[in-house]
């Protein structure tokens, strides 16, 4: 399930000419989008509403089951894929899905901005204005991005509270953390790229962290789930930028897992959903969107993420949390030149000779 795109893009990229070459490659290589999991809810026969999403099925299946149970005769087909694949399926291949749900805010924003989203009017149920764009893109969950640590792996070191602490800890203990730091690979993961673009915008300290991680031969992953698996297996001590909803699935029953909510800032991304313009069944998709925004579903989602998107459906955001707004500003992250520049800078920091 690790897609081939990032591997090919591993070579350091610099300048727009190379960036353009990579895009050309992207365009030709994209033959079919790759999926991770597929599952159907409800009866075999009857009308179908299809969802493509980056969300782990385990994190959302109870909400979907509730939806199908309340609507006899409706089948829900859930396809889980990485954010880049989701984007590719909709933008490049125009695969007819009824609902597209993704945590890659910039890609979702681009789909909507470029006219690939239909205008729908679900019941918003108190969704704040900053978590939606026009009547096309709707936030369904707020997902804090946290850092996970293995208590055992840290040993007697104090738990870092800020990025500065984290950098200092990693610097001072190279032998302990060499090859044991994990993070997203921004080249393969849309969320990963989006997170480093946000990080680099939030603080200059991020590049120092990237350099330190590069020096420690940090391991790069496509998804939060894998990082957590590695962490639990004891092969990784620190996992930087993990989407909290994954972590919360393991944290309660794994006493070894420490969730670091860094106090300088903790990003929170908005998982958002849209109904594509070519959706075969937009009415049921709108219905599903209303279901996802309904208080009962939101309460379940908020419990999973640890924070509520719609005020009153779960825990209020902590003061360190910086939710990212759904607005046109997100379009800049998908710019190929900006992406190439950022990735080359990241590569320079991470991959050291």
């Amino acid at each position, binding site marked *: 399930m690790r897609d081939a795109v990032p591997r090919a893009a591993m070579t350091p990229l*610099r300048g727009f000419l*190379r960036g353009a070459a990579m895009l050309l490659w992207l365009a030709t290589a994209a033959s079919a989008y790759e999926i991770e999991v597929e599952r159907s809810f409800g009866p075999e026969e009857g009308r179908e509403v299809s969802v493509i999403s980056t969300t782990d099925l385990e994190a959302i299946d109870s909400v979907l089951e509730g939806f199908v149970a309340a609507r006899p005769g409706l089948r829900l087909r859930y396809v889980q894929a990485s954010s880049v694949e989701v984007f590719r399926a909709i933008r490049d291949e125009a695969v007819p899905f009824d609902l597209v749900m993704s945590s890659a805010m910039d890609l979702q924003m681009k789909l909507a901005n470029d006219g690939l989203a239909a205008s729908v009017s679900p019941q918003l149920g108190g969704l704040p204005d900053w978590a939606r764009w*026009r009547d096309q893109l709707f936030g369904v969950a707020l997902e804090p991005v946290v850092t996970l640590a293995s208590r055992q792996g840290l040993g007697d070191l104090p738990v870092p509270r800020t990025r500065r602490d984290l950098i200092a800890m990693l610097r001072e203990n190279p032998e302990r953390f060499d090859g044991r730091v994990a993070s997203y690979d921004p080249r393969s993961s849309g969320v990963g790229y989006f997170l480093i673009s946000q990080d680099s915008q939030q603080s200059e300290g991020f590049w120092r962290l990237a350099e330190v991680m590069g020096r420690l031969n940090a391991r790069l992953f496509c998804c939060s789930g894998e990082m957590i698996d590695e962490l639990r297996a004891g092969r990784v001590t620190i996992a930087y930028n993990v989407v909290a909803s994954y972590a919360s699935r393991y944290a309660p029953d794994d006493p070894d897992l420490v969730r670091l909510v860094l106090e300088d800032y903790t990003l929170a991304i908005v998982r958002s959903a849209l109904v594509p313009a070519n959706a075969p069944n937009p009415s049921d998709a709108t219905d599903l969107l209303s279901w996802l925004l309904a208080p009962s579903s939101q309460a379940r989602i908020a419990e999973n993420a640890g924070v509520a998107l719609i005020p009153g459906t779960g825990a209020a955001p902590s003061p360190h949390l910086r939710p990212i707004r759904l*607005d*046109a*500003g997100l379009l800049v992250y998908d710019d190929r*030149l900006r992406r190439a520049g950022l990735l080359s800078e990241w590569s320079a920091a991470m991959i050291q000779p």
Partner: protein
Amino acid sequence: MTPAGAALPAGISLRRRLVWQFLVLSLLLVVALFFTVRFAAERASRASQDAVLGAAVISVGDGIRAVDDGLELDLPHATFSMLGAMGQERIFYSLAIGSRLVTGYEGLPPPPEVPGDLSPVFWSADYRASRLRLAAITRRVLLDNRMAEIVVVLGQTRYGQAAIARDTARSAVWIGLGFLLLAVPVALFAARAVIRPVDRLAAAVTRRGPQDLRPVRDPTPRELVPLVGALNGFIARLRGALQLAETFIFEAAHRIRTPLSLVRNEAEMALAETSDEATRQRLRRMVRAIGESSRSANQILDHAMVLYRSDQFAAAPFDLAALTASVLRAVAPLAEMRDIEIAAQGLDRPCPLHGDERMIEVALRNILDNALKYSASEGRITLRLYQADGMAHLSVQDAGRGLAKGDSDLTGRFRRGSNVGDVVGSGLGLTIVREVAAAHGGSFDLRPGPEKGACATLSLALP
């Protein structure tokens, strides 16, 4: 003016027409206001959003940097955020060197002219089924030792602008309609104010008496001056025609009277000279007929005189008691001839009045004439002059045949009672009296006497 005027077909109402015109014009103004405000709001919001778009495209251009191996672009997040904020606009951009796209969207509409590097070029075009407002600017960078011109194009939808213009225009319409609502009573009031002089003029003309043929001199709105002028012209012609007729009648009566008296003298002389009874009988009838005719001619002359004098009314003080006494003296021979006794009361005190003495005299003579005419021989006539309720009343009570039932108004021209029988008369006498009374603002009343006969009362206002 007369009751017959109300029966005219009503036609259009000026007031209603004024109000309607006012309302229709106001409505047109509201519509015009909608489009004007919409246009103005669109222009204003376009100008301000163009300024933001221009600043945005410049800031994108400023983010271009040439580095060792190509270009670097720092696409500013805040700029895009701001650009999309109003009305959550869609945003498209491109960076191109010549026809080669460096980054951004393909196939954006090209600028109408080559943009400069200081101030952006603006234009509107369609892209991906949306109307876009675009701005472009050129940046020159040194790329591989050659100066490259990069054209930065930034476009945004203008949903917000359209919504603002629509909302503003809509509020303008509501305000306009509010004013329209306020304007309705104002329009009604204005229409009434415009019509009021017309109403006043109509009322003034309506108030006039039937004899009043003076030109209309009431204050007239300038616009109605031609109408009133025409009306006055008409009145003048009417008066002319009437005067002509009166003059003709006067002239005719006058010319008939003189020969008549001549003929009468001759007939009386012939009566005195002849002894043949048949001829005498015939001559007597002749004298009587001639007397009747000359009496009529006299009355016509009196009537014409009264009309003329009431037209040229010139009042002067006089004593009614003295005047009555002198008229009594004048008719005394006639009364003696028929052995009628005239008892006068209240003449011993002067009764000063203000009026046309000559007219009053004619009226008195006619009243007494009438009384004598309808009294039997050796009858009695009672004349009383008294004052009551600020009026001087002169009543003449005879013991003649009185009035027949239903003869309530004998003062009309040439109207005579139904029981006049053999008594000669023209039917003008009482008309003359009434007209004299009217000219003096008084009244004349003829009613049956307490037992028999009739009682004629002339009432004139005391000064």
